[in-house]
């Protein structure tokens, strides 16, 4: 697992208060990890802060799974 993936996973665990094992790449924030729409807004803000990237609203709306987040961030950072 890449550094980005590890960090994303850690942020999700902290912010949504879920077990690490549940945070699989395919896991949906809302359907699988118990987040609501406000939680996902906050989660995206946490990603922005942690990785120093900007995630515009239209892109944020498409980030629904753990993998979506990792892919977007890695693309932004050119990894």
């Amino acid at each position, binding site marked *: 697992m890449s550094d980005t993936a590890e960090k994303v996973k850690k942020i999700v665990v902290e*912010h949504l208060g879920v077990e690490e094992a549940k945070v699989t790449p395919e896991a949906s924030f809302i359907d699988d990890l118990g987040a609501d729409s406000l939680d996902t807004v906050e989660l995206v803000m946490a990603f922005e*802060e942690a990785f120093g990237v900007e995630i515009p609203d239209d892109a944020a709306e498409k980030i629904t799974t753990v993998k979506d987040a990792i892919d977007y961030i890695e693309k932004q950072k050119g990894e």
Partner: protein
Amino acid sequence: MFQNGFSPRRVVVTGMGIACPLGLGVEHVWKRMLAGESGIGSIQSFDTSALPAKIAGQVPAGTKADGGLDISEWIPIKDQKKMDRFIQLALVAAEEAVADSGWAPQDEEGRCRTGVMIGSGIGGLETIDEASRLAVQGKTKRISPFFIPSALINLASGQVSIKYGFKGPNHSVVTACATGVHALGDAARLIALGDADVMVAGGAEAAVCELGVAGFCAARALSTGFNDTPQQASRPWDEGRDGFVMGEGAGVVVLEALEHAKARGAKIYAEVIGYGMSGDAYHITAPAEGHEGAFRAMTAALRSAGVTPEQVQYVNAHGTSTPLGDDLELEAVERLWGDAGKDLAMSSTKSAIGHLLGAAGAVEGIFSVLAIRDKVAPPTLNLEKPSRESIIDRVALQAQPRKIEVALSNSFGFGGTNASIVFRAAP
């Protein structure tokens, strides 16, 4: 209204919960209060070096087991950031009160007949402060999506209703330092008038933050002469008093229609028999001459209770330890009670926990109920030399055993809002 011939119902207290500077848990707090302990101390949670007041009553850190607060024992980490501390304290007190009442509606009808009315004087001040700091730095994009629901006063009621599924009236009171009494009184009326069978009611406050202390300092409302001896700072009616001491916490009660409580065999602490309100129409922070607004609120409460002053054995005073307010309230009580004042005990429990602002009336309502239950008047700490004599016993320094059947509790707020509530021993 009430063209249907509905007649008001009797309302009783069946559950109580407290988080305050003397700790968590009604029995723990009450025991410490009767022992004459104080919950006032130096403020450690932020830097007070630029502020003239450096003391407050804060909910002590600790564990459930020792009567202290570790919020992670009560609220999941994920949810903590969605609520300001005042809401967290409301949830802590509500959990105790609801469990104490034994009320856990199993059907939709029961849930829909159970409401919540928890108020606050100020609400999420620290949350607002933090968000505004981000805005000032141009970081509005960093403002949390939970900022508004964390700061809004009615979210204490909202969060409690969500946690328990209580779908009845969901309401909130904001009347500064009269909030707690208004919440209890208004909730009791909702039950009396048939809007609900059960109400979880109370007040919560957590304004002991830099902005809160600075604001009350600017209004010249706080004690500043006892920073080195914090436990002596709150001294209602004493000649050395120099302002109130801020406190934080929450008081929550479960109020219930008498017949509803009886039908389920609930333990009944006391009955809410009277409630009265008034406005001063005088000044934004100072009480009117002779505290005539307080006089009218107490008069209205006794009238609605159907009792005369001589039938009341205990008054839990607003008694904040301010130079002006204490003696004016005393004057109003003396005028109302007349000669019967010689048999009255009146104390200010703010001497032990400070002024909990919007939570004060709820916490003090609980102390009044306990005074009836245990037949004891809690003490007014630090009342060493009253600024003036009175025939009314102000329970100086030590708790007093008293034959208390009926108790009245006062709360008055900025803006000239006054409220009094009357409790009687369980029917």
